């Protein structure tokens, strides 16, 4: 498969995926990277996820809770803000529409089935 095509697909839905992961439970950056890395077709790394998390947080879509750690730096836990939930709903709705529309287009036509 053409790598650039896949990458473009991935790019378009990355924000939706990250918001969906954070919506499931309060989580931290590395857990998001791990989760994304193990999702087939969505294998992205930290250089993609962390800037996105930072931007979403900066835009007020994610809430941040900082917890001190006895070893290492404080860990940042992310959860969705009200704006983030709204954004997730919008993106999910758009995604569902796109998936439905594309599925209807790539399904074999009825006449083809008859053949």
């Amino acid at each position: 498969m053409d790598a650039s095509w896949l990458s473009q697909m991935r790019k378009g839905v990355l924000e939706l995926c990250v918001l969906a992961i954070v919506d499931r439970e309060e989580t931290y950056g590395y857990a998001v990277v791990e989760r994304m890395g193990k999702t087939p077709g969505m294998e992205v790394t930290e250089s993609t996820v962390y800037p996105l998390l930072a931007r979403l947080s900066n835009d007020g879509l994610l809430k941040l809770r900082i917890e001190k750690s006895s070893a290492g730096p404080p860990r940042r836990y992310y959860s969705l803000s009200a704006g983030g939930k709204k954004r997730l709903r919008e993106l999910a709705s758009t995604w569902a529409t796109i998936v439905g529309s594309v599925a209807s287009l790539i399904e074999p036509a009825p006449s083809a089935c008859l053949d």
Partner: protein
Amino acid sequence: MEINPAQWDQESRNSMDAYLDAVEAVLLEQKTPRSERILILGELESQIHAVIALRLEAGAELQPDLVRSIIESLDTPESYRIDAQHANAGSPIGSELESKTHTSEAKESVSIDSGVGSTKERDPRFQAVHWLGKLAAYRQRSRIDEFAIASCICALGALLIAASTGRDREAGIVLTGLLLTVGCCLGWFSTYRIKRSDGKLWGGRLAFTGGMILPFMLANIAAITLVVQTPLWILILIAAVLFANYWVIRRTWAWIASQSLVPSTVSVPDQQVSHATGSTIPAV
């Protein structure tokens, strides 16, 4: 397993610092907002510690080679360049679209900094648009805290009411007191929000002024009322009060500046299970 960074040898620490510095340099070059840089670098540092903890659990020993190999397994600093992300197909399109103010701003400023005076650069309209863009981008990512403004408006309103109180003196005093109290509370609330905002909100001095105005008015009134019976000493005492005000303000401001307001540790789970994969990620 947790390992205190103090136990790291110098070489390991240097490796990590050099990597984080290199990433930060790329982010700075991209003109990534400070608050985002802090988050990104913090996440990277956390990840390095988490991976070290995982390796130690697996039986590895904390040696410079371990830290070096972990850092080598991470994305290169150049991967944080937006162009590189574009080429590697890693960056979200939403990010590119929505943060285009940052990117275009960065590209514009690069062209201006590195250029030798193209027509576009010399065009005053372009310059105006450029600065307007910069201003808009700045306002988008960093805004003044509205509670700081509200606090100062309350304080200012109280002073105006106090100055113009004539006939209905009691009502004026009550309203002044109420506004000062509200302004003070808003000021401290705003100071707290600004401190917690990690650089996203500004207006700390404004908020501080609003938060301090009521305590200082009360203190000053009390001081003047106490000494008004001894007119000979009034000038000296006023000077002393002013000096005390200055001293307390400086001390309080320094104290506020020294507070990180990071919540204290609240039962960090030792391990957090990734729901989808079932893999465990240790809390470090």
